[in-house]
């Protein structure tokens, strides 16, 4: 792995630099701005794609790792790494960012410069979050994501955008600050055991933690992630944020930001605190199952398309959580797939909603009806995406959903029995919505002369449709890439469970040390 070129850093900072450059363009030059933004996102995509081939299959550890000193006094370092878990998610990120940028050409009427700059900055933060291998660095990226997203919702959003933006920001932050406390606790715990000041994830992976301590740490981490996921009952920010966000914002929010939560579980919460995780499994799985059913039921009665999709996300992410907590190969792989699937299909759904919103400036189901007639291509694309979301075999949604159910079933039959009802319910709410929007006679005359998907829009959906079928028909290459990392995570969980359970039931949470928090090289004192 003698990587000389800091590839991952390049991936992280290229969009940021592009954002800065775009911000310097004159505000009037909208065409140039769009062009640059598109080029930047496509270039980023081109830079990221080789990750797919260059990821060494069967290699469970970090690849393309980078390590640089950052805050030596604290022991935090700028260290990055990729593996089979993060690479697919990063690829999803770059693809959807590009798609969102191209998709937003017409939607963003005011201040495209700032809009695109923020979107690219957001991309940087998201990629950084996936690649960070140092907890403090991770936290920095994690929180940094909030700001651009907040502005995207707040400035370019709908009528209640301010409320939604603030709610999004504060709710998410409320969860994550406790994680910061837990990170610090972990840091000192590690220091008291090993004497080493470090925020490195790998070091924490080796740290034995007493079960009693684990519970608190896990809860702090889990809250942050559960809000992001969002798990029932922490989900109410999501419908608000989605409804108010501009299309590109919704796309990114649904496709990537929500994955941060589940990524956090798989990368941090579960392997670091396996005993606590196991102890709390009934609660988490319970919430996931409630989320599946609840999200679907509530989605069913939504009058607003975006809200419907938002609640469906709650349901889908419930599947992901269920898969993770099945704690077996199938469940984990299914959960990972489901993360990607949800990114693709829900991202596409938001784009689709954006397409008609651009044309009609409404998202209420009741304002549509009979759209198939004027918009056959649009309707067909919508149908395919919708079926992927419903999990029809042959599309990506099925593979993930089935693997999750399989994993869950093998852990606990009843989990799968309850989760399976989501299969029925998702069909109900999606098809009913589709029926009301697309079928029947054209109820509103203004819908009659809507224009169908333009070339650009078709171009936007093409990669997503491709992914839908490719992952549905041939998921194995992806599975092969993820498996080693997932196996490592599973092994880590087992191993650490064993280690922790050998420890004494109670351990002094933090043995006090006299040495200072900061290790600073002394300067000569005369």
């Amino acid at each position, binding site marked *: 792995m003698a990587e000389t070129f800091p590839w991952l850093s390049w991936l992280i900072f290229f969009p940021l630099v592009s954002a800065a450059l775009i911000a310097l363009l004159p505000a009037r030059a909208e065409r140039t701005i769009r062009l640059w933004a598109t080029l930047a996102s496509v270039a980023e995509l081109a830079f990221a794609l080789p990750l797919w081939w260059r990821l060494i299959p069967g290699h469970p550890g970090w690849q393309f790792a980078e390590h640089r000193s950052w805050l030596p006094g604290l022991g935090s370092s700028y260290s990055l790494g990729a593996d089979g878990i993060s690479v697919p998610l990063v690829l999803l990120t770059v693809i959807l960012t590009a798609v969102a940028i191209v998709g937003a050409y017409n939607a963003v009427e005011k201040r495209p410069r700032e809009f695109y700059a923020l979107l690219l900055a957001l991309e940087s933060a998201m990629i950084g979050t996936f690649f960070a291998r140092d907890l403090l660095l991770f936290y920095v990226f994690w929180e940094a994501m909030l700001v651009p997203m907040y502005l995207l919702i707040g400035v370019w959003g709908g009528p209640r955008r301010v409320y939604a933006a603030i709610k999004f920001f504060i709710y998410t932050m409320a969860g994550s600050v406790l994680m910061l406390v837990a990170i610090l606790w972990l840091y000192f715990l590690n220091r008291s055991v090993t004497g080493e000041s470090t925020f490195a994830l790998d070091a924490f992976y080796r740290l034995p933690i007493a079960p009693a301590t684990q519970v608190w740490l896990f809860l702090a981490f889990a809250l942050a992630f559960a809000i992001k996921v969002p798990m029932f009952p922490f989900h109410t920010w999501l419908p608000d944020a989605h409804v108010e966000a501009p299309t590109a914002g919704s796309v990114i929010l649904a496709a990537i930001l929500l994955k941060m939560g589940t990524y956090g579980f798989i990368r941090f919460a579960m392997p670091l605190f396996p005993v606590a995780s196991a102890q709390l499994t009934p609660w988490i799985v319970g919430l996931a199952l409630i989320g599946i059913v609840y999200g679907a039921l509530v989605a069913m009665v939504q009058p607003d398309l975006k809200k419907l999709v938002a609640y469906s996300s709650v349901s889908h992410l419930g599947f992901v959580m269920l898969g993770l907590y099945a704690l077996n190969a199938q469940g984990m792989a299914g959960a990972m797939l489901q993360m990607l699937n949800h990114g693709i299909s829900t991202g596409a759904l938001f784009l689709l909603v954006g397409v008609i919103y651009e044309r009609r400036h409404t998202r209420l189901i009741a304002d549509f009806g*009979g759209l198939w007639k004027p918009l056959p291509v649009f309707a067909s694309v919508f149908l395919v995406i919708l*079926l992927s979301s419903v999990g*029809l075999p042959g599309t990506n949604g099925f593979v993930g959903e089935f*693997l999750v159910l399989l994993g869950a079933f093998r852990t606990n039959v009843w989990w799968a029995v309850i989760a399976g*009802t989501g299969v*029925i319910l998702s069909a*109900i709410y999606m098809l009913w919505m589709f029926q009301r929007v697309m079928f029947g006679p054209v109820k509103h005359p203004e819908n009659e002369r809507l224009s169908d998907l333009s070339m650009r829009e078709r171009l936007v959906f093409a990669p997503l449709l491709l992914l839908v079928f490719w992952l549905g028909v041939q998921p*194995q290459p992806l599975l092969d890439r993820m498996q080693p990392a997932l196996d490592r995570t599973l092994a880590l969980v087992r191993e650490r469970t064993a280690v922790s359970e050998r420890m004494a039931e109670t351990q002094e949470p933090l043995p006090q040390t006299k040495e200072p928090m900061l290790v600073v090289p002394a300067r000569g004192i005369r």
Partner: protein
Amino acid sequence: MPLLWIIPALPLLAVALNLLIGDRLGRRGTAVLAVGSVGLSFAAAVRAVMALAARPEHERAITETAYTWMRVGDFSADVAFLLDPLSAVMALVVTGVGFLIHVYSTGYMAHDAGYRRFFLYLNLFMFSMLTLVLADNFLLLFVGWEGVGLCSYLLIGFWYTRPSAVEAGKKAFIVNRIGDYGFILGMLTLFAWGGSLQFERLFAAAPHVFAVGSAVITAATLLLFLGATGKSAQLPLYTWLPDAMEGPTPVSALIHAATMVTAGVYMVARCHVLFDLAPAALQTVAVVGAATALFAGTIGLAQNDIKRVLAYSTVSQLGYMFFACGVGGYGAGVFHLMTHAFFKALLFLGAGSVIHALSDEQDLRRMGGLARRLPWTHGTMLIATLAIAGIPPFAGFFSKDEILHAAFASGHYGVWIAGLLGASLTAFYMFRLYVLAFRGASRLTPEAEHHLHESPPSMIAPLVVLAGLSVVGGWIGPPMMEGGHWLARWLRPVFETGTHGHEAAHHVSRGVEWTLILLSVAAAAVGIYAAFRYYLQRPELSTRLREQYAALHALFSNKYWVDELYDAVVVAPIHRGSLRLWRFWDEKIVDGTVNGVGYVFEGASAVLRLFQTGFVGTYAWFFTLGVVLLVAQLVRR
């Protein structure tokens, strides 16, 4: 190698081409593409089956693996195809009947605006159905299973501007989904205990891992059967099929009569090894099948829509197939599946021809006397009606007789009586249909009268072919052949694996067998006679009957109010509950708590601001209070 993957791939290719260059093909090109692909597919199937037949009996199973679909941990599923006698029968029926119906459709849909879309869906359906039939594992079968469901959804709602069609499509999909839920859970159970979803491996392992009658296998098979009831419109999930008649008639013929709805039967037959291990499940299959046969038959008595009558008859016939399987007569079930495909497809196509001729009139009460005006349609329809009624030597007679024989021979007398009763009912309502449509005086609207014409050759030709099949189709399975008839022998390699508990029971004496045949023919004859008497000779009798048994008639014509019941018990409460869940629980309680926290802080802020009076005295007072409290800390110590 017979290249099995070609069979489903051809229609898929047609779909792709249709999507990509369909707009440049024109109607003719589209038709050629669609029909041609299915025809080629049929040819490929024939070739493959011949290759299969050329093999010695016990090597008649060809597996072809295309690639690994997914492999995670110890779970793996391939995209692999299996051709054995059972799937061979299915493949031939599907491609054969499918081809005919494609041909028919070119005429029937000739003036529809959605011509290209129609064939797109239809080809997609062929692909899915063939995948279903040829899959060598449950997961791939499920791909086809859901795929046909999707196509069914799309085709039922083909005329999407009609709300009723759209509603019917959605209903079909959702009801099927309920079945699929069972199917998925069944698959999960099988994998969790059986260790594989590949048919061969699973069936080989099944007798070793599952004890006969154990809870696991019973649950698994019942769950699979739940899937089958959805797909094959059995109680309690049959309600979508009659509504599905909103689709174009060729669709009804292909999907909702000949092929897709029989998928459940095929699946049960395919899994006979498993069902044999679960007697309770088998019993359930038999009872549900028989009950459905009878139940749907009674509803069929009172329907006036020509396609609805046929739909209920389909439900009823499917019931026959299931109870055949339930009593262990898998071969009989498959036999009936095949013959039913011929005559029911014919019936639908014939009905379609009538509808087409009458400018989309479907109500039997506004038909009559069409025999002379539509001679080809009338002739073929009569053959089909005789076939379904079970009159020898038409196809239906042989298969239905075999089913009843199997029921009787295996000792399921109750089921047998139900079957006999059902046969009589079938004959009655089918001939009622026949009489109302083709005999008697014309009750046509003047407008329909004006446009009345016989269908074009592209529609008549398939009718004729199917009529031929409806006549001769049953002859491959004559009763009382030594060592089983031809079809049974062909299927033997499939059905003789697993347990053999039911084989012995099949042997009853010739005398009994003859009696059974006579009884069933007599039952049919009674039905036919009654139909002629009540609807042709003395129509007023039927009116009187209807008045005498008004309650019963209401029950039948309103389909036992099952739709209304489901609506009131399941749909409406869920909808209402969800609304409440959203409006009250989600917005008021969950989100209310979140916002409540915000309000609490705002309130606290307002209160704290009150302390900030702007008066120096207040400030000093709180300052001093602080001092007092701090010093109090010392004093306390």
